[in-house]
């Protein structure tokens, strides 16, 4: 088709592509890319808000003795930091990436349910405004930990019902987002895009979406019971009325353990995209990767009580949860081995996305190994609720989930903008992040083993040295993160133009589209040849 032939049609075509401009483009957004962008911006803002709370925590813990914060405010900082980072930063970042990439990767024009998509995003700013507003009401923000264990949580002030309402809204948003992902993947795949040709990011997100739909209602139920215990005289979790405070923990962790896989499975997907690209070699053991992801998702439902080995469970229960937890090491090991085998006999280059993926590979493995140690119940009696646990889950969540998100953004940003970003600056961002994340979290292993409990605003003086190292690492890590929005902003504003395929070794349908891609990604389904070229595994 020559352009001239369609000069007359061009206007119609434009009309078809018509989108509102200015603020209406965002408030009324139904386009998957616009909504994906909003999710990512929202996640970035939450990352800095949650991060500034972490900075306050590390500031108070720089020295023994209370210097800056009231202990109650300190507790609300640890609680809010977790809620901001989990529900405000990591989960919306994954949904943002899903919005941007899934339609492009499966050969669809958009997400299946665009208006629902708009709604599920716009719930979030209200939910988090409400959550942050608790800091300014009598009694302050929630201070019982993000795990919200009763009876402590029931002692909350005016912020208590606000927190619960905020969590309900976040849960609704997540469920709607997950439904959209499932429907898009199930119904909008291009002809020929069979399930076992889908990119692993799509696969891991499909499984994540099912986990979300399964467990977010469980969380909603748990917090609703807290609410009725507090306001309507029920005694679900109050022993004096025949209830059971430990039951909350069982319900919470039945949500909470799949939740940690909700945070990490899409990371597995992204790393499975990046490593083959920069190894110039297809993913090793594609099907094994899919089955391992599904196994991890299944196991995530039967290991919850390993978070509560010290509550006094029967011996048989402790044995069961120890053994089922150890089983998770097997599919996780399969994934790590397959990524390693992908690099073996490849042709590696080290652009920023690959650097972040490699950092993920090493540091997530460290977090996985400390997780294996935590599974051993008698040893867990010594680890439980110490900084060893803090080190463990930050290793899997920061250089795990967060680095994978950053790697994913560095991987696809040229596709989204059509411009290559400043790779030198991005490498600075990578090295500063990787070095200081270890300075920040590695000493916390020592602190925990030496006996420092978690969630304390002050500590015995023998813990001073490693806490200072950790705090210095924290401040440096925090400062380094300002490079990230700067690099993105600079790239959005301009840069070296790139073609369809931003990276030499990249495969997949998104790289067959122009950079930046058209407003409606695949208005016509991609051909079978394109699909097969993308799914070269």
């Amino acid at each position, binding site marked *: 088709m020559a352009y001239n032939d369609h000069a007359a049609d061009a206007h119609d075509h434009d009309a078809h592509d018509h989108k509102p401009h200015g603020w209406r483009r965002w408030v009324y957004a139904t386009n998957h890319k616009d909504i994906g962008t909003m999710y990512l911006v929202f996640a970035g803002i939450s990352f800095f808000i949650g991060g500034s709370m972490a900075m306050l925590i590390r500031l108070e813990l720089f020295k023994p*003795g209370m210097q800056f914060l009231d*202990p109650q405010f300190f507790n609300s900082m640890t609680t809010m930091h977790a809620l901001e980072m989990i529900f405000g930063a990591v989960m919306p970042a994954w949904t943002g990436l899903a919005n941007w990439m899934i339609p492009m990767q499966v050969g669809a024009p958009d997400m299946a349910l665009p208006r629902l998509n708009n709604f599920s995003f716009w719930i979030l700013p209200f939910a988090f405004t409400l959550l942050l507003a608790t800091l300014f009401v009598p009694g302050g923000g929630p201070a019982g930990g993000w795990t919200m*264990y009763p009876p402590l949580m029931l002692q909350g002030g005016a912020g208590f019902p606000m927190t619960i309402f905020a969590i309900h809204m976040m849960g609704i948003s997540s469920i709607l987002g997950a439904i959209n992902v499932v429907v898009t993947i199930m119904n909008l795949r291009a002809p020929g895009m069979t399930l076992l040709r889908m990119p692993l990011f799509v696969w891991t997100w499909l499984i994540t979406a099912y986990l979300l739909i399964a467990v977010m209602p469980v969380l909603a139920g748990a917090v609703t019971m807290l609410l009725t215990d507090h306001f309507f005289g029920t005694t679900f979790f109050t022993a004096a009325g025949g209830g059971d405070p430990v039951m909350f923990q069982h319900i919470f962790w039945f949500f909470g353990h799949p939740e940690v896989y909700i945070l990490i499975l899409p990371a597995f997907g992204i790393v499975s995209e990046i490593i083959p690209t920069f190894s110039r070699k297809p993913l090793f053991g594609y099907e094994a990767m899919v089955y391992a992801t599904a196994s991890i998702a299944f196991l995530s439902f039967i290991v919850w009580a390993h978070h509560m080995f*010290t509550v006094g469970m029967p011996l048989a229960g402790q044995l069961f949860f120890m053994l089922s937890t150890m089983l998770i090491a097997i599919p996780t090991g399969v994934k790590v081995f397959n990524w390693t085998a992908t690099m073996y006999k490849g042709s590696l280059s080290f652009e920023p996305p690959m650097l972040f993926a490699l950092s993920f590979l090493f540091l997530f493995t460290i977090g996985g190994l400390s997780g294996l140690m935590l599974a051993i119940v008698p040893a867990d*009696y010594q680890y439980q609720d110490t900084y060893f646990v803090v080190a463990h889950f930050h290793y899997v969540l920061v250089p795990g989930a967060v680095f994978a998100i950053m790697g994913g953004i560095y991987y696809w940003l040229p596709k989204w903008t059509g411009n290559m970003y400043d790779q030198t600056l991005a490498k600075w961002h990578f090295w500063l992040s990787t070095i200081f994340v270890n300075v920040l979290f590695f000493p916390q292993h020592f602190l925990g083993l030496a006996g420092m*409990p978690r969630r304390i605003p*002050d500590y015995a003086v023998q813990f001073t040295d490693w806490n200072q190292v950790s705090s210095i690492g924290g401040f440096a890590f925090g400062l380094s993160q300002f490079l990230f929005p700067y690099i993105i902003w600079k790239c959005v504003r301009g840069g070296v133009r790139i073609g369809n395929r931003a990276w030499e070794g990249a495969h997949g349908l998104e790289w067959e589209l122009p950079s930046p891609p058209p407003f409606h990604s695949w208005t016509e389904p991609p051909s079978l040849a394109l699909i097969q070229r993308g799914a070269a595994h």
Partner: protein
Amino acid sequence: MMRKILSQSAAVAALGMSLLPAAHADSGWGLLNMTQGVTAMSRQIYGLHMLMFWLCVGIAVVVFGVMFYSIFTFRKSKGAVPDTTLVHSTTVEIIWTILPIAILVATAVPAATTLIKTEDLRNSQLTIRATGFQWGWNYEYLNSGVNFFSRLDRASDAARQLGSGIDVTTVPHYLLNVDKPLVVPVGTKVRMLLTANDVIHSWWVPAFGVKKDAIPGFVNEAWFDIDADKPGLYRGNCAELCGRDHGFMPIVVDARSPEDFKAWLAAEQTAEHPPAADASAPAASAPSN
């Protein structure tokens, strides 16, 4: 067999630790690892911890070794050509599934054996009930009438206030000292009954390898048996977030010889139930003076 493995791994651990930079083991930079503790159980837990630690180090060395080898060998900048046919191997997948299963089974056995022992509460010789509250502990020696509260000591409490102006490094055992410690005999199987009267707390003394939640409305059990030759003061903390002053809720255990303990208990009984002052009930056991 298992005990041998555990003691060996503890020995290996000690060797490994000795290679680390020399430092005082009980302060600052030298605080790198779990304490071996002063009970047979805490040493067994330590052995298990070190077994898992070295296993993880071994796995990490192998896996990271292959990763680093690949990263340094198969570089495009060194002219590496990708072998794009190397994408699947059922044999390899089976090997790296079976091998971890074997390792896990091998570690599950000592873990389960130790766990079963921690749950064996038979033949205890002394029972103490600890009740957590916001923020301290109440200890009751069952059937003896001795019952007292144990809270953060005054010196720590004064120093820990926001803007107290007190240099906390000058406070002895800052945040790890109480006004009245729990006193127990060494060489005795002591059973702890743990509960709470407001929110959930957790009773943790690292040197005993004991951490158990104290939950309102429920009674949990735990036990320890301190080595007969290791009387002394052992310190721990509440390990479950319990509100504003969770970080200021230490546990101190004063382990004494059984004779000293008996004398202490008798003195406590006298102090708590002083002999009646009126002449109609002269206390036979009251010391005359």
